[in-house]
């Protein structure tokens, strides 16, 4: 585009044509001067809109603004599930960090040190039982919220065309959440934990070609023991938190950039 102004936007010529009084001319000249520098047209409009819209209120959602279908507003709680799962994740992280101070990932002894440390947390530690309860419940809520979030996204078509990448990312995140839950489930080293671990080993071994290698990597062998619980612990408190937090940031960043897909 050329820097030279087009004739029809030559404001000076326009002023001459208008044949204005001195007051009008002064006013208009200063208006043009200010507007060309500050774009006051934009701000004036905002101010006026605010003035006329005396009942100042929350910015409207897309649905409300275009008066689309008020029925869909009542689905709104389902739109906060993604945010809620992040909050539950943060609660789990905070309580998990505190629990980590007192937990011992070891199968030595009978019952194991891991089991004993969980017993000690729940019975000896101040607020220990509540801490463990909070950790477990926030994890349960997070998992539930993540599942419901996926269902919401499916039924409102929010996964569609420009957002496929985020849908895939969401599937990765949901899987990692399940792994989070599974590794945490094994840590108390009670009967349920041990036999759930047994199933995990068998499942890993059933995978062709990489199965044995995978079982070695994740469970530290084909029978459960010290190596298993240490690996589960490291996955749960070191590997997964970093990976999942980074992926959540990416997931939310993409949502932020693309905007919320509301049903129309």
């Amino acid at each position, binding site marked *: 585009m050329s820097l030279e102004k087009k004739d029809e936007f030559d404001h000076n010529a326009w002023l001459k044509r208008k044949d204005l009084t001195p007051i009008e001319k002064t006013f208009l000249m200063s208006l043009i001067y200010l507007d060309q520098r500050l774009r006051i047209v934009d701000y004036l409009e905002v101010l006026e809109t605010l003035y006329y819209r005396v009942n100042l209120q929350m910015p409207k959602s*897309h649905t409300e603004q275009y008066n689309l279908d008020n029925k869909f507003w009542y689905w709104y709680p389902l739109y906060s599930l993604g945010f809620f799962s992040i909050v*539950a994740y943060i609660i789990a992280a905070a309580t998990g960090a505190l629990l980590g101070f007192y937990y011992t990932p070891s199968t030595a002894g009978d019952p194991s040190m891991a089991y004993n440390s969980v017993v000690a947390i729940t019975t000896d530690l101040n607020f220990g039982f*509540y801490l463990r309860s*909070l950790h477990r*419940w926030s994890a349960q809520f997070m998992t539930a919220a993540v599942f419901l979030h996926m269902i919401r996204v*499916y039924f409102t078509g929010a996964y569609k065309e420009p957002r496929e990448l985020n849908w895939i990312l969401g599937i990765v995140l949901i899987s990692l959440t399940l792994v989070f839950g*599974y590794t945490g489930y094994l840590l108390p080293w009670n009967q349920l934990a041990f036999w759930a671990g047994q199933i995990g080993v068998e499942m890993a071994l059933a995978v062709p070609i990489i199965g044995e290698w995978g079982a070695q990597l994740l469970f530290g062998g084909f029978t459960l023991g010290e190596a298993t619980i240490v690996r589960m612990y490291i996955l749960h408190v070191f590997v997964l938190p970093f990976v999942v937090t980074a992926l959540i940031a990416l997931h939310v960043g993409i949502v932020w950039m693309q905007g919320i897909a509301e049903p129309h």
Partner: protein
Amino acid sequence: MSDEETKPDVQSGGSGAVAPDDETPSWMERKTRSTGLSRLTYEYFERARREDQDLRTESDYVERDVLGFPTWPHEVIRNLAITMFFSGVILLIAATVPPHLGAPANPSKTPEVILPDWYLYWSFGLLKLNPLNPGLEILGGDKIISDQLYGVLANVVVVSAVAVVPFLNKGSARRPVEQPFWAAIGVGGFVFSITIAAIAVQNLIPLSLALQLNLAFVLPIVSGIITYAVLKTMREGYMYDLNRRYYRLRPPK
């Protein structure tokens, strides 16, 4: 610009002190009615806007359609309100329902019930599909793949089925009524996740395994068909409104 086109032209008379939102006159409407200096201001701003518009048309910067509404502020603020409530629920439930810590691990004693947490039941149920693992006559009734591998593969199939959805279903339709087929698939999948989870806890449910396996696959199909029928019926009445409001804003490609 498009804002002003979509605004209704209705100017109601004597509607109280506070103008209702839809009836707030647009900036242009208010200005065209005034005189004197404000009229002059309006004329100048109109010119300035047209100039902007022309420059915008000339430039090679592509203005895209709005695909969503912004996360900040209203999405986040409303989410905070709802989320704070449910965080309170977490604190309350954690205080009232403490978790159970069972007997310590004992490798020599297999418990009667082996279960993961509830959120893995669907996966665990898929691992228990071995009665459906086909045996081949040619191999003398042997199975091609082991039962366990069959279970693992079932998991892979389910997860990849979920993953390919956005590549099969495209377009601007957002509501279940607009696409009864995909809504039916969704409801079927949801019901399947429950029936397959019921197979995981099969020994706790007083039904025979054969019956449960049948139900696990029949119920999702039935619920999918019902969903399809219901949405198809609703669709007729619904589409009038949808066409009027929605396709005006988002013209189909």
